[in-house]
């Protein structure tokens, strides 16, 4: 097991030297007091997260851990190159499969996997997204297993969330420990909203004159990520709209204002494809805008991320991302994939069923850590029940080896103890290029030994430091 602070031998690693020393000097009471103060701050600002089941308080906080997670400058340099490479390939793939489909014709990815995939969006065929960008904001989930071993666990090409936590965690960190932060030489991240706005404006429809009008489209205040939607709209200085605030007239999109209708050029949507337009997708959707897809196809408005981008982050398509990098970019992948078995393939399914006690099995189309099996931590009974589900619909599952995720010191009830972490960096793609904010959102499994970091499953977050030198 690799601990990011103490390595494998117990001596503090160089990037963590200052933090290790600082942490040793902090009495537990101080940490506890600061931790309580952080919680008050979060609740006060209203950074809550809606949890869908379990009753009780529906507005919960995602626990914030005081101990920052640190990434050295050269480590980050490598990760950043890898992220940019991967995101370029994912965008090239999307442009290709909604266009000429060369990768399928070249036999590099099975046709059925793409064309019969529910995430493949037929209405996008032949539509060239403005600037050639399909996934404008990508969240690439990384895990680490050793000093030089980084793996991509999954790609998020639709509407990855969490960036507000990344930014608020930093703000709270700087407020709680201003001096310690100031002398640590940490890369700033506060420019993210500005970078996002620039990326969104860069993909405005070509016919748009003057400064493009950008809006953030939210399902509304009962959505679990509503806080983030308000935060991003606020930080970018653009309007936060709901479906009912928009209307399509004469093939263009307008917002309803106190002065009548005003034109909208770019929609940063935080609504799933299926709810965007009741005329094209789900008819019962009250969240979307009737006629939006027609306007999009006409090229009078840009939707970010593009409709149909989800095909690139399907967990079965994931297996082919290294191939995409070679195919489109002619490069060797920098970031590794986790070896993955597809239960839909007969030979691989047999292997999975025989080795359930050492594998992690996930729904190919699920998210949020719901409906997954962590083999080594499950009981015999749970494994047997899961095996039945796999046999019933093998296509719906993929399996991966249980990775020994790195740990980071974390402040818990009993004091400071190692807990497993992952990392979601945010990659921004505009027609003007690709940018990555240094660091990202570190998620931490607060339960001892747990490998599930999702906030819906009791995970917390940490501030993530990329060091300047």
């Amino acid at each position, binding site marked *: 097991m690799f601990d990011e602070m103490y390595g494998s031998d117990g001596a503090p690693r160089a990037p963590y030297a200052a933090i290790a020393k600082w942490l040793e000097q902090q009495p537990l009471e101080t940490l506890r007091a600061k931790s309580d103060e952080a919680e008050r701050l979060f*609740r*006060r*600002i*209203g950074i809550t997260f809606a949890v869908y089941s379990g009753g009780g308080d529906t507005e919960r906080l995602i626990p914030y851990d005081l101990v920052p997670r640190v990434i050295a400058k050269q480590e980050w340099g490598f990760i950043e190159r890898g992220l940019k490479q991967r995101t370029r390939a994912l965008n090239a793939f999307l442009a290709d499969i909604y266009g000429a489909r060369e990768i399928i014709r070249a036999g590099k990815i099975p046709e059925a996997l793409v064309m019969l995939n529910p995430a493949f969006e037929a209405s996008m065929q032949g539509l060239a997204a403005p600037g050639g960008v399909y996934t404008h904001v990508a969240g690439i989930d990384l895990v680490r297993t050793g000093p030089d071993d980084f793996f991509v666990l999954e790609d998020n090409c639709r509407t990855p969330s969490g960036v507000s936590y990344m930014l608020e965690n930093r703000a709270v960190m700087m407020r709680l420990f201003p001096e310690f932060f100031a002398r640590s030489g940490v890369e700033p991240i506060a420019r993210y909203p500005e970078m996002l706005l620039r990326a969104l404006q860069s993909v405005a429809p070509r016919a748009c004159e003057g400064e493009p009008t950008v809006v953030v489209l939210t399902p*509304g*205040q009962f959505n679990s990520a*509503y806080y983030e939607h*308000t935060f991003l*709209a*606020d930080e970018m200085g653009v*309007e*936060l*709209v*709901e479906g*009912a*605030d928009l209307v399509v007239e004469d093939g263009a999109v307008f*917002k*309803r*204002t*106190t*002065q009548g209708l005003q034109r909208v050029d770019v929609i940063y949507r935080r609504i799933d494809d299926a709810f965007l337009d009741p005329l094209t997708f789900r008819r019962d959707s009250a969240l979307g805008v009737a006629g939006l897809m027609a306007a999009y196809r006409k090229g009078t408005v840009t939707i970010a991320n593009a409709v149909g981008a989800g095909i690139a982050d399907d967990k079965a398509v994931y297996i082919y991302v290294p191939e995409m990098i070679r195919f489109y970019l002619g490069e060797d992948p920098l970031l590794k994939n986790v070896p993955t078995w597809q239960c839909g393939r007969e030979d691989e399914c047999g292997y999975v069923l025989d080795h359930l006690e050492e594998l992690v099995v996930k729904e190919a189309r699920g998210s949020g850590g719901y409906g997954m099996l962590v083999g080594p931590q499950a009981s015999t009974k749970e494994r047997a029940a899961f095996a039945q589900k796999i046999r019933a619909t093998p296509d719906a599952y993929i399996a991966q080896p249980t990775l020994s995720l790195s740990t980071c010191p974390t402040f818990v009830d009993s004091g400071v103890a190692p807990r497993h972490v992952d990392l979601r960096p945010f990659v921004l793609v505009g027609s003007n290029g690709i940018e990555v904010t240094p660091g990202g959102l570190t998620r931490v499994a607060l339960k001892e030994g747990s490998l599930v970091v999702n906030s819906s499953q009791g995970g917390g977050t940490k501030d993530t430091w990329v060091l300047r030198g």
Partner: protein
Amino acid sequence: MLARAADSIFWLARYMERMDNVARLLEATQSMSGMSESAEEWRSALVASGCDETYLEKHAEVTPEKALLYLAYDPDNPSAIMSCLDRARTNARSMRTALTSDMWDAVNGSWLEGRHLKASAFTPERIGETIDWVKTVGNRFYGAYAGTMLRNEIYWFARLGTFIERADNTARILDVKFHLLLPQDEGVGGAVDYYQWTSILRAVSAVRAYQWVYRTEVKPWNIADLLILRPEMPRSLRACYDEIDAVLAQIATSHTGRRGECHRLAGALAAQLRYGRIEDIFARGLHEYLTDMVERTGQLGVEINAFYMR
């Protein structure tokens, strides 16, 4: 700004103002009822706040304890103090980007505090303390928005919400007196009558203002004059409508002069108050006059919504 945002900020301000006003109504009622054994004052408070019918659907009779709980706490009553705070926060949350962080903090912070209040904080013994808290909440909100908001459309729609709600409430509080019957052995101008009128002044924090303006003992027509026609009294109908008229004009100017029925209606009401005489109001009947004001204020809200918030 978004039409829906204008609607949310308007209602945020209305609910915060209503919360504050219901608290003042409760305070006045509590103090009036100290003079009699009956629940008459509470019945009239229910009438004045427009929820006597829904109350009677739920309770067979009016008792001080039940009326108090209904007006302050009962989630079934949409105008109860705590319901107002809840709705204010929902409106604030749906338009967080339009609020300054101080304003959000004033609403959300108060809402978080309010969540700890149990029904036991709304008993006749403890209501005084709770009302003080509610007034602090109102002032904190008002201070945050007066002190931190840009003077733009968002601010103007908040002002509209505040003053329309306030005009409505002032008319209603004054009308409470009409619904109160004096005990049989008491006459007009007697001790109870006097006490009731003073309580109304207290409900709008205007006891000192009254003395300052009239320098004489409490007389009903002076109180009506103060709360209806006096421009220097911040809760008077006149002051409210001066503000509403001015704010609507300001919005129109910023929208290249676009005006509608709401502007005409506000202008007419403001002019009527500016040139009205208290003798005429009494000659026509105070209750009829106030009922008419409540109705027209409601109509103005509808017209503002039709013109700006759809």
